[in-house]
C-alpha cells in the first residue's frame, strides 16, 4: 500500500512539474516583455517581425511623437473646459461658443493628421509588407476609423465618410 501511495503522489507531482515547465517555457518571452520599460513597443517588434535597427528607429519615432500628442491633448482639454463653462452660462448659441467649437474641431483634425503622419512614418520604417499590414491595423484600431453614427432609427446605421 505504501508503494502504491508513493506512485499515486509521484504521478501527481510529475503532472504538476510538467504543467509548470511548459507554462513557464511558453510564457517566458511575454514575461520578459512585461518586465521591460515599453512592452507595447516590444510587442510591435514581435508582431511585425522588426529587425533591431527598425525597432530602434520606431522607438525614437514613438518617443518623439508622445510629448507632442500629450500637448495636443492638453490643449483640447483646455478648450473642452472653456466650452463647458461658456455653454453653462449661455442661453443661445453665441459667436464665442461657435468659435470654441470650431477651434476644437480644428485641433482634433490636427491631432488626427499628426497621428496619421506618425503612422505613415512608422510604416515606412518597417519592411514594405509589414508596413502595409501595420497601416491597415492602425486604421482599424484608432479613431481614424470613426464609430458608426446612429440617429436611433431602427437598423439605420451610417459611418462618417
Amino acid at each position, binding site marked *: 500500500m505504501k508503494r502504491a501511495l508513493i506512485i499515486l503522489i509521484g504521478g501527481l507531482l*510529475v*503532472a504538476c512539474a510538467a504543467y509548470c515547465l511548459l507554462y513557464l517555457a*511558453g510564457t517566458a518571452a511575454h514575461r520578459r516583455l512585461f518586465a521591460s520599460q515599453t512592452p507595447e513597443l516590444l510587442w510591435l517588434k514581435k*508582431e511585425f517581425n522588426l529587425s533591431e535597427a527598425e525597432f530602434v528607429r520606431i522607438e525614437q519615432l514613438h518617443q518623439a511623437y508622445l510629448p507632442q500628442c500629450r500637448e495636443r491633448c492638453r490643449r483640447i482639454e483646455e478648450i473642452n473646459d472653456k466650452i463647458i463653462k461658456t455653454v453653462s452660462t449661455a442661453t443661445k448659441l453665441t459667436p464665442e461658443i461657435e468659435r470654441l467649437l470650431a477651434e476644437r474641431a480644428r485641433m482634433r483634425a490636427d491631432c488626427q493628421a499628426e497621428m496619421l503622419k506618425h503612422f505613415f512614418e512608422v510604416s515606412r520604417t518597417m519592411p514594405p509588407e509589414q508596413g502595409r499590414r501595420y497601416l491597415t491595423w492602425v486604421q482599424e484600431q484608432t479613431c481614424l476609423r470613426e464609430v458608426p453614427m446612429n440617429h436611433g432609427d431602427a437598423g439605420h446605421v451610417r459611418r462618417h465618410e
Partner: protein
Amino acid sequence: MKPERPSENHESFRRLMRVWRVDSSIPPRFQEQVWQRIERAEVAKEVFSWSAMVNEFLRALTRPALATAYVSALLVAGLLAGHWHARADTTKWDKALASRYVQAVDPYQQALAIDP
C-alpha cells in the same frame, strides 16, 4: 402461401415437450449451491463502496505496467494543460499589449478600447 397460425405452433411445441426426456442427472446439492451463489452475489453488491474501489485501485497501481501507464498519462495531461494555459495567457497578453500601443498613440481610444 398460407401463414402458420400461432395455435398450431403451440400444439406442435407441446407435442415436442411431451416426448422430450432429460437423461442426465443434476449434481449433488445443486439447488443449495445455486442459492449460495445468489447470496454471495447479493453480499458482494452490498459491500461495494468508494473506499473499496480506491483500495482496489491502489492495489492495481503496484503493478509496473499500470503504474507506468498512470504516471505517463499524468505527465501528458500536465504537459497539455501547461501548453494550453500558456497559449491562452499569451494570446490574452498580446491583445492587452496591442491595446496598450493603440492607447499610447491614440488617446481617443482610452474610452473605446476593450480591456484585456
